[in-house]
């Protein structure tokens, strides 16, 4: 029944968004990009895509960091168009999507404050999608206690801070633990919100968020090997949703090395296929071809889930999925640019193809 009234608020934006999706690079265009020899060739090839207008004013020896920044600008402009034209149910959904970026920005500011840097410079480094009105107010805080009080009052993330952290924690805990705790609260809140949105959105977003939670669970586990993070603390960082909640999470909380992780994951059919042939010790962008790393497999699975959300119409999941696919595309383009600029053309095929 959702179809009969979705288009009142969402019809125009969904049409625009599907237009954005049609602008994602195809396999053919990726082929052209991989055959470029210099950054100027790359710029020429990208001139016909959605990134063209943003790249054309860059001076000729373009670095990959500039490329990455300009591509992100393109993404931000498209997303902000959606935000500016959205009405109430969609605008809240889009706000929820930006909270993830806000968490990253706030962590950046906290780190800056802890190391006594001038946080006004850090404002430029913050991700534009995660910019909220009272963020400059956070820069005024000179101690972490003040920062905590300001955040508790002024930012949309107040609820996530209230749930899990106190002011002392901000000083003592490792910054990564804070980031993961906040992100866990955010994922759970987002998942609860999507449930209230009714059927197609709830199903599609449920799938995507569950996969995100599983991925974070596995990454937290793997990254905690060899650090002094205790197992109870590790278990507290796992988000309480996903296919691995609760049984696999209790098992993963107790493992000590990669083989045990693999043994736990093999019990789940979707992850068993992902683990086949994976070189668990390789980091992202390994030797190419069949010897992919676990992270690459996760990216591929994420791309697949996000592509599937476009199969249905009249739901909000497409907004989230497009954003993730666009980010993946920017990662791919930057990878290709890095390979070209460092003259390592043999690794240029290691991007995760989307279409």
């Amino acid at each position, binding site marked *: 029944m959702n179809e*009969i009234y979705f288009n009142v608020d969402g*019809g*125009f*934006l*969904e*049409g*625009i968004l599907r*237009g*954005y999706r*049609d602008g994602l690079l195809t396999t053919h265009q990726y082929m052209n990009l991989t055959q470029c020899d210099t950054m100027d060739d790359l710029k020429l090839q990208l001139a016909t895509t959605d990134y063209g207008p943003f790249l054309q004013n860059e001076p000729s020896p373009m670095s990959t960091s500039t490329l990455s920044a300009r591509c992100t600008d393109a993404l931000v402009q498209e997303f902000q168009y959606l935000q500016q034209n959205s009405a109430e149910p969609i605008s809240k959904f889009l706000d929820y999507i930006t909270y993830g970026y806000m968490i990253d920005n706030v962590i950046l500011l906290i780190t800056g404050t802890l190391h006594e840097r001038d946080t006004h410079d850090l404002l430029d480094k913050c991700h534009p999608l995660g910019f909220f009105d009272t963020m400059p107010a956070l820069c005024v805080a000179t101690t972490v206690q003040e920062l905590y009080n300001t955040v508790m009052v002024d930012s949309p993330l107040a609820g996530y801070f209230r749930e899990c952290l106190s002011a002392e924690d901000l000083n003592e805990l490792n910054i990564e633990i804070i980031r993961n705790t906040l992100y866990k609260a955010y994922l759970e809140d987002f998942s609860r919100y999507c449930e209230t949105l009714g059927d197609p959105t709830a199903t599609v977003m449920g799938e995507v968020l569950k996969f995100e939670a599983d991925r974070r669970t596995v990454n937290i586990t793997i990254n905690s090997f060899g650090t002094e993070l205790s197992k109870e603390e590790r278990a507290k960082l796992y988000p309480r949703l996903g296919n691995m909640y609760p049984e696999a999470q209790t098992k993963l909380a107790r493992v000590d090395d990669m083989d045990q992780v693999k043994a736990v994951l093999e019990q789940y059919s979707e992850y068993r296929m992902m683990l086949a042939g994976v070189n668990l010790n390789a980091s992202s962008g390994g030797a190419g071809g069949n010897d992919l790393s676990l992270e690459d497999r996760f990216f591929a699975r994420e791309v697949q889930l996000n592509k599937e959300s476009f199969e249905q119409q009249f739901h909000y999941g497409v907004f989230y999925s497009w954003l993730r696919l666009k980010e993946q595309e920017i990662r791919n383009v930057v990878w290709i640019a890095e390979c070209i600029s460092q003259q390592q053309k043999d690794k240029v095929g290691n991007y995760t193809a989307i279409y």
Partner: protein
Amino acid sequence: MSYGGSGYAGYARYALNATVVFLAIWAGLYLLLTGRGERFNFGGYLLRISPYMWSVYGIALCIGLSVVGAAWGIFITGSSILGGAVRTPRIATKNLISIIFCEVVAIYGVIMAIVFSAKVSAVTSSKGFAPSDYYTGFSLFWGGIAVGVSNLICGVAVGITGSNAAVADAHDQQLFVKILVIEIFGSIIGLFGLIVGLLVTGKAEDFVGAV
């Protein structure tokens, strides 16, 4: 049972329902047990309603519901065409066909309303209505509902399919004709309503009075 404000709203609603049901049962049993059961005469009530009311209600529902269906379909399709045409302007012209299919539904409603209203004429007899008048009244009412509701659903169906067609056309040009076939099947539903409306009111005669 849901509780509102102070917590007693749920109880109040339940009490109201129970009182109404109690009064209805009391009235019914009173009529039944005191030999006045014949007074509850639903058929007589229906006959006392003027056939004019039935027939013009039917005409109003026919045109009203058809137009609601057409408008609903047009806004569903139109917003998707607007969004998709920002990037792919070529879809704007071709997808007007979907809007036309929705509009056709409203035209069915207008035609049937005109056909029905031709049967409504003044009755000059002082003895009331003839039996054929009652048939005309009832058939125009239910014929009008048949046409109106089927056009309502047809308009919504064509609208949703038209929105899918616009989005698919923006992505891949060859999909448009294939989804158009589905739309054509959807718009046949409105035609069914039109045919049934005509059949039902086909035997209805113009209003004459009792002789």
